[in-house]
């Protein structure tokens, strides 16, 4: 990858990676630190990274930097999925989905974000997260069932 291509990567992927990191870490400062770290790594390795695979490289690096991050590790997967906050404060489906997303286990969250935000194929997600393709599918399936569950429970309340 050339310096020019590196700059294209920054222009095109920095926002997307930041969104992915913010959703996963729930912390803008950590997300920015990890993002910067990721791009430093990309800059250092740019000669060895194929521009066509740069986006996957960036997401892979960001994800693995994140799971080594102390704050991210301190987060616990929520054991109970629903019914702890006042759901009436959400006015539209998007807010509800965001709230539901926060309640997913970490790996399900990372998986479904790559699928829905970035449109990655299951195989690519598997490569980025170091999972098997089957595992990715299981996580996506479970995540969507939980999202549906959560929204369903709100429907009953509203």
């Amino acid at each position, binding site marked *: 990858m050339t310096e020019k291509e590196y700059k294209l990567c*920054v222009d095109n992927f920095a926002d997307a990676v*930041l*969104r992915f990191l913010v959703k996963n870490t729930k912390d803008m400062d950590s997300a920015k630190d990890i993002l910067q770290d990721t791009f*430093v790594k990309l*800059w250092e390795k740019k000669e060895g990274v194929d521009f066509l695979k740069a986006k996957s490289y960036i997401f892979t690096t960001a994800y693995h930097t994140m799971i080594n991050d102390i704050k991210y590790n301190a987060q616990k997967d929520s054991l109970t999925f629903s019914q702890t906050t006042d759901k009436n404060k959400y006015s539209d489906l998007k807010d509800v989905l965001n709230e539901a*997303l926060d309640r997913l286990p970490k790996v399900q969250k990372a998986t479904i974000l790559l699928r829905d935000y970035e449109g990655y194929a299951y195989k690519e997600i598997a490569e980025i997260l170091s999972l098997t393709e089957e595992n990715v599918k299981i996580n996506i*399936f479970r995540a969507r*069932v939980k999202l*549906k569950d959560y929204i369903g429970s709100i429907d009953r309340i509203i």
Partner: protein
Amino acid sequence: MITKDNYQAYLLDFLEGNLSSENKRELELFLEKNPQFADELKAYDESLFLSPDLGIKFEDKESLMHKKRFIFPIWAKYSSSAAVILLLIGFSFTLFLNPYSETNITIDSPIAQNTSKPIIIEENITEEPQQENLIEKMKNTSFPSKEAQTTTPKVVSQTQTEPKANDIIIEKEPRIILSNSLVVYEVDNLISYTVEDDWKADKVYEVDNLIVYKDNTNSYLSPYMKNKHVANLANKIEDRVDKTQDSFNNALAYIQENINNNPFSKNKPK
């Protein structure tokens, strides 16, 4: 093979129309046997797609562009102190070592006179010689003699890695033989060393502190030394260390033992 652990992957493929007819049959069989999972097909809602929050943007893209400016990665925060130390070391080179780098320090030079103090290693020496005596002695001492030098080939063969008895001429000079061609000796806190090939009575290289140090696999000259003589010696040491591992280790142990807590320093001439 569909199991309770992976059936959801097949459900997903089925819902997305990606299941082969063979796998479809297998899935139907599995759900017949395990009807409790069939409901999950209804629970899955493809329409629940998450859309990214486009309001989240990384504003400071310039900071990632590496325009001569480098972002400190997380790890670098902790290595900055190491960098400062390296800078200080580099500075001390220029300050203390460069003046000597182009000049051979002779025994008669004021520097040598001021710094060369006798360290007595041989146990049979109990009296400390006066400084003048030492210098006189060093002048007169037959360091590996010129005859020896002329007979010693420039390229030392492997058979010569152990010092020969008649190579060690200076009985009372504190020194450590690293090999037959590399000699280390200590003068007060200054450790001096030379290669016999280059060793003449009027040519002594003195460098403060540790000469050789060793990590798990390699031996190095001290990073505190940098001049052209040391560079020459470094090559020679590294060539020879493997061949003379034991004597090298002994010398190293001796240096390490003495460098910080020099038992002879109390003998310093007033």
